[in-house]
């Protein structure tokens, strides 16, 4: 079944500040199918978290410019706040970045959860907490965490509590923004697999998994999309993106990943020289051209999305010429 849950078409969202516009999400299109985990990868400042905020809450200076976003067939960009609020938690939910720091230090976890869900119009009664306890079992946490203060929990435990809260209404679509980056490796594995398990069990529908860590996406995502400096770079099935990347940026990103078995002494990995461009009032053109070893005259124009094969798309003028030339 390839039913589309979320459809984003040519979405543009800019930060409007005194000096001009920061084009953080510029012409992004993607669709998320029912039951899939789509990984969104990119480095800091590539617009991946801005994309999440655009979908959930556009607070100034972030402004929606143009494009279409349909969640379950409904246009959520032009929806009133009240209408959208009704969809929150049930249809769309987010595990925000730094959620670990969102706990109130003076509130017990139980009170924190109760306060939070009442804001969303849910009554935190016995029945509700029964469900919370069920979910706590699912994430392997003892029920006693409810009567503890946040400082008594480790980062991994807090992240599990957050996951329980954000998935409590079995959302059809959930955005997970860097949920593993603040955790220890063992908790990373647990939390990432947990998300996949929640999906397998049908508790949550589809996932947009935002991270800078491609190796985690390799573990749990079915498809991966790569962004660079607000632009779309490449999207495709996980094995294809990792095994056969076609965009020079994706190539460089993957070949710069250290992995067990590669030591400096034996093989020196190379990163990407330079830093991403400032997105403030940025003009036309491929945004990677300043750091791209293959950049040519045509790259002064913004590359269009092109099909490589079914499901694998790219935005690069020269991908065919570059071919299998590896960056290493």
């Amino acid at each position, binding site marked *: 079944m390839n039913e589309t849950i979320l459809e984003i078409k040519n979405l543009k969202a800019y930060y409007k500040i005194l000096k001009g516009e920061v084009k953080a999400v510029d012409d992004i299109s993607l669709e998320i199918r029912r039951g899939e985990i789509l990984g969104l990868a990119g480095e800091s400042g590539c617009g991946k978290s801005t994309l999440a905020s655009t979908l959930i809450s556009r607070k100034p200076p972030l402004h929606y410019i143009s494009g279409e976003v349909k969640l379950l067939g409904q246009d959520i960009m032009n929806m009133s706040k009240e209408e959208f609020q009704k969809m929150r938690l049930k249809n769309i939910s987010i595990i925000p970045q730094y959620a670990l720091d969102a706990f109130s230090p003076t509130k017990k976890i139980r009170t924190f959860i109760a306060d939070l869900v009442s804001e969303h119009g849910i009554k935190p009664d016995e029945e509700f907490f029964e469900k919370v306890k069920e979910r706590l079992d699912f994430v392997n946490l003892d029920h006693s965490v409810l009567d503890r203060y946040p400082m008594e929990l480790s980062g991994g435990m807090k992240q599990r509590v957050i996951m329980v809260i954000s998935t409590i209404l079995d959302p059809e679509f959930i955005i997970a923004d860097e949920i593993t980056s603040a955790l220890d490796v063992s908790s990373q*594995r647990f939390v990432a697999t947990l998300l996949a398990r929640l999906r397998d069990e049908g508790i949550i529908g589809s996932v947009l998994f935002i991270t800078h860590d491609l190796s985690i996406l390799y573990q749990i995502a079915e498809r991966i999309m790569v962004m660079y400096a607000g632009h779309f770079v490449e999207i495709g099935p996980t094995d294809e993106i990792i095994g056969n990347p076609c965009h020079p940026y994706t190539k460089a990103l993957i070949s710069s990943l250290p992995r067990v078995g590669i030591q400096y002494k034996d093989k020196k990995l190379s990163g990407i020289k330079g830093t991403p461009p400032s997105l403030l009032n940025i003009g036309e053109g491929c945004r990677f051209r300043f750091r791209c070893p293959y950049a040519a005259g045509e790259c002064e124009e913004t590359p269009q999305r092109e099909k490589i094969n079914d499901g694998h798309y790219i935005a690069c003028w020269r991908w065919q010429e570059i071919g299998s030339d590896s960056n290493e």
Partner: protein
Amino acid sequence: MSEQVQNVMSVRNLSKVFKSGVFKPKYTVAVQDVSFDIKPGTIISLIGESGSGKTTIGKLILKLIKPSSGKIYYKGKDIEEIRNKDELKEYYKKVQGIFQDPFATFNPLYRVDRIFDMIYDSFGYDKSNKEERIHQVLQDVNLVPERTLGKFPHQLSGGQLQRLLIARALLMDVDVLIADELISMLDASTRIGVLNLLVELTEKKGMSVIFITHDLNLGYYISDESLIMYKGRLVESGDTKKIYESPVHPYTKMLFNSVPEIGKRWDPEEEFLPEQVIKDVEEFYKENAGKGFAAAGENHYVLYSID
């Protein structure tokens, strides 16, 4: 004594207990009975998860806190004996630390050039080629001097600040650099450059690096030797390749089992619980009772039991 002169740094039976609370004090053992050596010009990884004591070891070496017991020798000299201001200054000229959060390190009111000025002023370096050297170290860490020097910390990105910290250490020509989660805030494409830079510096200048990290892949990439820490104890140490290829301690095994790696997927059938390792370790210690910290092979040591 001769053994300790050869090593640039030697840590012997180091322990640190933190006391919290006044009336009913609680004691937390952060580091317990840790010993290791650092040879000149090598990189040693100190690997562990949060709460393992790895940062505490860094702080102890930097004399930011005092050990509860045990000794640290810098080139054969007990660092506890470094007390007066001048000696301390000399020590900090040679032993420097860079930490994870670059935002917390810099004074937000000082421009970058002032940070470098302060090094020259407080450590009394020769100022004749100051500008040239500052430009050189900034270029070494991939920063454009013209675009960096006049800026305030908040105008630079986390990665840029982190590289600035390394530049600062480079300027000082240190012997031992303690890099605590130095690149965990950097992006994949830029951090390799920083790592390569660190290795080059050890090779060229003979600097030693204690690379504190939770990222096993990074640890493997740059270090000759590794130390695996778990709950304040050193549980496995020695040659990096040996530890990674044939880990013995259950905690080390669990770590390698959970690290996400491209080209190797986690076993979906395996029931993975981070908490399980506590029991596994207990059992391992029981099975190997009496063995203590012993060799598992050439330059490969394992904590078999805690008797």
